[in-house]
């Protein structure tokens, strides 16, 4: 049920594909799918309505790009609009001319206020400031002790006393002045937006310390209620920004969009773990991808962009699908790939990767071994492995510190791979389109459990490269690898919901 948007789009895109223009009916079809995807990602009902209206208008008004097919263009617009809504101005902390700079933390129970007060203190410290933490939560058992413990870990002083929250906050400010701390972070008790008494209390705390920045701390797993909460806190406190927590989970994080729409102030920080260093400035584009179910695509692309020589790699991939790929090519590409980090990490970020591939146990030492064997081959052998007879095998094995059976095994695997790739590549595009459409209909059931079926497209320079349906039951209920158009917005496949680690 948590299908990525790109999955849902397959049906709609199939219809849009190839048409030269976006008709109103096309756009409406696409909007229905986007609406579903956003609601599944916990974006608030009304926020979705407004958002869809904006996207729809743009989709109809925008000139069609030559590079993208219509469906891809819709996704591109959605992604841009989402990024724009989530982003906008970024927060710049301006320090008060008359120190200390005061920060007030507020939010629902358990959202992460205390932890993120400490994280902020750490962040201010890293900016060369001297924060004081003030524990104004006198309500929850051991709340002040929790803050003191965190303060000790950071070597940041913590002020609190057993009076009342408003008095503690005021006294904390005085303490900072007295001891020359230039930033004060006030942690408050969790409170419900509908608790009039406690909302009034936090307003009084705010009046007592007159904060330069008031942050709403909100859990990324929050559902529809995010809007009610954000509205109430904004009304009471005039928020300056939002801290989005628990982003290290797999929630799609649609609440962020809701809150951003309501508050209209930046999402300033993202909290991605329980440890105090798991905290960073917020990246709207990453979250946009995540809400859309596009996983870590953007991160992956950034890396790929840094590492690969585009033309060269495309040519190699084309040779691969034409059956012309040699050990030489393989070695080159493997070098590039290695620069992106451990292979398992790369696989983890790639949406739409079939389960067999994702779950394959990858040992990076194995990569080194393969590399050593290939390096021990002569250039002629790399181009034509058929040259390699028993005596050459022995020589290669000796040169690479391996043994002849392993050499033979590698060559066999390489040939199998080449055959498979060629088969994928050789499939006619018409036939392919058909089989894809069929696969799309039999949602989730997939093309008969084949592991190599589905078909791939000939990599003529114009035609897009396509990958097969390796595992229709892959995580995210997808239907195999995505349609990989070359100048393509990606339409990354299913399953890419996972957050970046750390």
């Amino acid at each position, binding site marked *: 049920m948590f299908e990525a948007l790109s999955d849902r789009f397959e049906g709609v895109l199939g219809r849009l594909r190839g048409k030269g223009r976006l008709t109103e009916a096309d756009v409406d079809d696409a909007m229905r799918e986007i609406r579903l995807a956003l609601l599944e990602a916990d974006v608030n009902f009304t926020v979705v309505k407004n958002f869809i209206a904006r996207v729809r208008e743009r989709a109809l008004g925008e000139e069609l790009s030559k590079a993208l097919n219509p469906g891809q263009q819709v996704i591109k617009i959605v992604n841009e609009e989402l990024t724009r809504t989530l982003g906008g101005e970024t927060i710049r902390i301006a320090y008060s001319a008359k120190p200390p700079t005061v920060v007030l933390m507020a939010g629902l*129970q358990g959202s992460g206020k205390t932890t993120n007060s400490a994280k902020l203190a750490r962040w201010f410290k890293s900016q060369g400031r001297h924060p004081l933490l003030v524990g104004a939560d006198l309500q929850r058992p051991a709340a002040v002790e929790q803050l003191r413990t965190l303060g000790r870990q950071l070597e940041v002083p913590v002020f609190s006393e057993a009076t009342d929250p408003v008095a503690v906050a005021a006294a904390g400010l005085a303490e900072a002045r007295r001891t020359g701390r230039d930033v004060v972070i006030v942690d408050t008790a969790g409170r419900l937006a509908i608790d009039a008494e406690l909302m009034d209390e936090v307003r009084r705390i705010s009046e007592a310390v007159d904060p330069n920045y008031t942050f709403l701390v909100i859990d990324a797993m929050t559902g529809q209620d995010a809007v009610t909460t954000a509205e109430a806190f904004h009304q009471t406190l005039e928020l300056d920004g939002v801290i989005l927590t628990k982003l290290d989970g797999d*929630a799609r994080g649609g609440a962020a969009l809701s809150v951003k729409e309501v508050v209209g102030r930046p999402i300033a920080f993202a909290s991605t773990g329980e440890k105090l260093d798991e905290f960073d400035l917020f990246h709207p584009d990453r979250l946009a991808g995540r809400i859309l179910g596009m996983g870590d695509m953007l991160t992956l692309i950034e890396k790929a962009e840094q590492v690969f020589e585009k033309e060269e790699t495309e040519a190699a991939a084309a040779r691969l699908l034409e059956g012309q790929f040699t050990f030489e090519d393989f070695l080159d590409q493997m070098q590039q790939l290695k620069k992106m980090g451990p292979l398992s990490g790369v696989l983890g970020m790639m949406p739409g990767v079939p389960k067999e591939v994702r779950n394959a146990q990858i040992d990076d030492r194995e990569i080194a071994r393969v590399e050593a064997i290939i390096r021990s081959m002569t250039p002629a052998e790399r181009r034509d492995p058929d040259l390699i007879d028993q005596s050459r095998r022995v020589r290669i094995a000796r040169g690479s510190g391996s043994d002849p059976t392993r050499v033979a095994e590698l060559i066999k695997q390489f040939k199998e791979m080449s055959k498979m790739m060629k088969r994928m590549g050789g499939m006619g595009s018409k036939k392919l389109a058909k089989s894809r459409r069929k696969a799309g209909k039999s949602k989730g059931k997939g093309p008969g459990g084949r592991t190599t079926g589905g078909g791939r497209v000939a990599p003529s320079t114009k035609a897009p490269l396509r990958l097969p349906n390796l595992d229709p039951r892959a995580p995210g209920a997808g239907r195999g690898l995505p349609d990989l158009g070359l100048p393509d917005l990606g339409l990354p496949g299913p399953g890419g919901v996972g957050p970046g680690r750390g």
Partner: protein
Amino acid sequence: MSLVLIIALVLVVLVGTGLGLVVSRRRGRSGLLEPPSPAPVRPAPAPVIAPDAEAGPEPEPAQALEPEPEAAPEPEPQPEPEPEPRVVERPRFRDRLSKARNALSGYMGAIGGRSRIDAETWDELEEALILADVGMAATQDLLEHLRSQVKAQGLGTGEELLGALKAELTSRLGDFDRELHFSEAEGPTVWLFVGVNGVGKTTTIGKLGAREVAAGHRVIMAAGDTFRAAAAEQLGMWAERSGAELVRGNEGGDPSAVIFDGVAAAAARGADLVLGDTAGRLHTKTNLMEELRKVRRVADQGAGTVTEVLLVLDATTGQNGLVQAQQFTDAVELTGVVLTKLDGSAKGGIVIAIHEQLGIPVKAVGLGEGIDDLVPFDPAEFVDALFS
């Protein structure tokens, strides 16, 4: 699958998506930096600010969650809760209901008042269900079911439609065993509390501990959260408030060892109930879920028997709640859910999917931060609170 094949596949994917994307993304970036208009939205009628004043004095006896095998047959009246920092009211489902009534009257009032069931009625119903975090799939399914009922039974008015919806929801929440069980065997009973960060595990233990102590049990609270700052101190304060005893370990120590010690201490001191706290953990962290499995195993290895493994779920949680329940039950076989923070404006609708798809019942509901703010789950009242 051979490494060679994997590398080849990765390559093709990268060329297809990654490098291709670079181009369009660069292109796409240029024109998008005009700041968004912060058009505020108003999705729900203004939140009702209603600290239910009339609720406090109501003398309704706290329902015992568990008829205990050996203790007094009559649940004893609870001892005066020690003074809280602020006045603790005793919200009940019924009070929630009045809030929900107000909050939802925009939708439900409108629907209930309709003399015909038209497209608008269906739209409003969908909206109300989604806003209650019932989820897309369950909402569609419910609407489909209702459509066929409208046809089959000739329902004509909005009120009849609402009646059918409530009946359907209540039946989907079904007949589950919602009791918290004690072990038949010798030795202490163990209840474990698990869930993601900040949902209310420790607080729920405090409330339940108070209830079970009041019901005549001797309760030990085991501070299995050795990770979060001051977690054991927090549980210690709850133990004190509720008249339970605390067993704790070293900070950063092995949580399963603390739980094991708690069970051993219970056996030694003749306590019959161990409430095991665990650190909050996201279900996506495999190592932490593995740690939890071990806690579950070890808790059963000594003198005690684990009869309940309860997922504590925050009512504000959206669709991720279902994933949480799935992952936690895969790891430690949940016996039930405690739905907390239902005193807020969130409706907790995701538990409908948890009942339906996973067959895990909600056993208790948290309605506040005070020691008395825990009540048994009642499907009909829950549904009423969603749609009155």
